[in-house]
C-alpha cells in the first residue's frame, strides 16, 4: 500500500518537474533565438535607415546637379552659341480649331 503510493507519488513528483524543466529549457532557447533574431532585424533596420539617408542625400545632390545643368542661362548659352539657334520674333500658330 505504502509502496504503491510512493510509486505513484514518485512518478507524479518526477514527471511534472521534468516536464516543466524541459519547458523552461525550450523556452529559454526560444528566447535566445528570438532575441538574436530581433537584434539581427534591428541591425538590418538600422542599415536600411542609413541606406535611406544616403539615398536621400544622393537624390538631393542629383537634383542639384540636374538643376545646375538645366539652368536656363546655361541652356540658352549653348543653344545660341554652340547650336546657333534663335527665337523667331514673328511666327504663326496653326490651329486645327476653326
Amino acid at each position: 500500500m505504502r509502496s504503491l503510493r510512493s510509486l505513484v507519488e514518485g512518478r507524479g513528483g518526477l514527471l511534472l518537474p521534468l516536464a516543466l524543466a524541459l519547458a523552461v529549457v525550450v523556452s529559454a532557447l526560444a528566447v535566445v533565438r528570438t532575441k538574436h533574431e530581433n537584434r539581427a532585424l534591428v541591425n538590418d533596420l538600422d542599415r536600411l535607415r542609413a541606406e535611406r539617408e544616403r539615398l536621400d542625400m544622393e537624390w538631393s545632390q542629383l537634383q542639384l546637379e540636374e538643376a545646375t545643368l538645366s539652368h536656363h542661362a546655361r541652356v540658352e548659352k549653348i543653344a545660341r552659341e554652340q547650336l546657333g539657334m534663335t527665337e523667331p520674333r514673328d511666327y504663326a500658330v496653326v490651329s486645327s480649331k476653326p
Partner: protein
Amino acid sequence: MNGARANLVAKPVGAWRRWAVFGVLGLGVTVVLGRAFQLQVLQRDFLVQEGDKRHIRTLVIPGHRGDIRDRRGEPLALSAPVEMIWAVPAALLESPQHVYAVAKLLNKNPRELDKFLRDREDRKFVYISDPISPADAQRVLALKAPGVFSEPSYARYYPAGEVAAQVVGFCGRDGQGLEGLERAQEAALAGKAGSRRVIRDRAGRVVEDNLESRDAQAGRDLALTLDLRIQYLAYRELKAAVAKNNARGGLVVVADSSTGEILAMASSPGFNPNNMEDRKGGGERNRAITDSFEPGSTVKPVLIAQALSLGLYQPTSHVDTTPGFLKVGSLTVHDVHPQGDIDLATVLSKSSNVGAAKIGLSLGAEAVWSGYQHFGFGEPVYSGFPGEASPVLRHFSEWGQIATATASYGYGLSLNALHLVRAYSALANDGLMPHLHLLEGASPVPPQRAVSANIASEVRQLMEGVVAKGGTAERAAIPGYRVAGKTGTIRKISGEGGYAENKHQSVFIGMLPAEHPRLVGLVMIDEPAAGDYYGGLVAAPVFSTVMQGAARLLRIPPGSEKLPATPLPALPSTQTVALPLAEPRT
C-alpha cells in the same frame, strides 16, 4: 581485525573545528553578499549609468528643411548634405605626414595648417575645413589620419541663382531663413530633428532600438506660383534693359489675371544667394513688394473706369484739353503735347494729364477716392512676403482741388508694384479683383468686385489705343495678340522735396490678349539715364518681349483676327489650351 576496527573508530573531534569551518564559510557568504549588496544596492545607479554610457547611444534623426519649388516642380531652394572635417589637434600633430596630406586634400597650405593646429593643441575639437561635398570628405577620411573626423551637416543651395533670388530669399549659416520666403515661411519649411536611444554592441552595431524615441519632422515643401521659365525670361530681359538704359534698377511682375497667381517677379539689381559675400549689396531687396512709388499715369485707366461706372462719362465722351495746360489754384497741369478736344481713348493713348485732371475734378474728390479704394489702392496686398510696402492714399476729406487734380494723374498717393498689378488684374478679369499670391494652394480669398464687367471691357478697349499706332507705347505691341496697357513716366521725388527734373521711373503695365486677358504684366525701370526715359520707350519693349515669351510658354492662343487669312495646309494640331492650373472664371 578487532584492532583494525578499533583504529577505524573516529576519535571525537573538537567542536571548535566545526565552528571554524562554519565561520570560514559564513565569512565567505558575508563577503559575497556584502559585495552583492554594495554593487546591487549601493552602487546600482552609478553602475547602470556607466553601463549605459558604454552601450546606449542617443542618435539624432535629422529633420530636413523643406524644398522650395516653382509651379512645375523645378527646384528653387534645396538642402544638400555637406561634411565638415574636424580634428583633435594633438592626435593629428603626432604624424606630420598626415598633416601634410590632409592639408593638400583640403587645398590648404600645410605649414599654415600645422601652425593652426599647434595654436590649438590643448583643444579637443577644431574644425579644419569649410563645408565640403561628402565625396571630398570621404577622400580625406580615407587617409586614416589620426584624430581626423567628419561631421555631416546640411547646406542650402539655390539652383536658380540670381533669377529668383529676391523672392526665394536665403538662409543663414545656421539654416534659419533670413530673407524672402525662406524667412516668411520659416515655420513651414523648418524641419524638427528627432532622436532615438539605442543599444549598441561592441562593434558599434545597433542591436536594440525600442527605447524612447522622438520622431523627426521634415519641413514641408513649398510650391510657389512662379513659373521659372517666365521668371528667367523676365529677369534676363530686365537685366538687359537696366544695363542698356544705364538705370539704377527695375522690376518685372507677371501675374495670371484670373487666379491672381504671380508667375514671375524679377527685380534688379540682383544677387547670387549661393554666395555669402553677395548677400549684402542691397540687391536682396524685392522691389516689387518692398518699394513703393507714385503710380503716375498708370492710374488713368482706373480713373476712367470710375468715371464710366458713375455714368458721368461714356466711352465716346470728349474732354477739351486746350490749350495744353490747366491751372488749378497754384498748380499748373501740363501736357507734353497739347491735344485739343480729345475722346477718352486719346486721353489714355496720349496720356493727357490735363484730360485726366479735368475728369478727376468733374468727378470730385470723393468719387475719385472711392474709385481708387475699389481698386484696392487703400489696402495692403497681403502677398505673404515680408516687408510689404503699405499704400498711402489719404482720405478724400483731406484733398483740396489740387490734390484731386494730381491724384487724377497718379501723384500724391503711393503704391507698390503689386497694387498696380492687382488693379489691372481687375480690369483684365472683367471687374473681379483677384487676391495676388505667391504660394500655390494658399487659402483662396474670393475675388472682390472692383467694377462691372461691361465697364472693365470698355476700359480695356480704350487701353488698346495706347499700344496701337500713334499711342505712347507702340513698342509694347506683340505680333498676333491684342494688347491693352498704359504707360507711365513718373518723376521721382528729389531729396530736397519737390520733383527731380531728371530722375524718372519708366513704367508699362498691360494685359494680353485684350479681348479675354489671361496675363497682366508690369515693367518698371528705375532712373534710366541713357537718354530715353518715357515708359513707352524704355519699359514697353521689355513688356513686349517678356509677355510674348510668356504667352508662347503658356500656350495662350493669339487673337483670332490676326490669324493668317489664307488657310494653311492641315498640320497636326498644336493644342492651344488653357493654363493648366487656371480656375474657372467666376
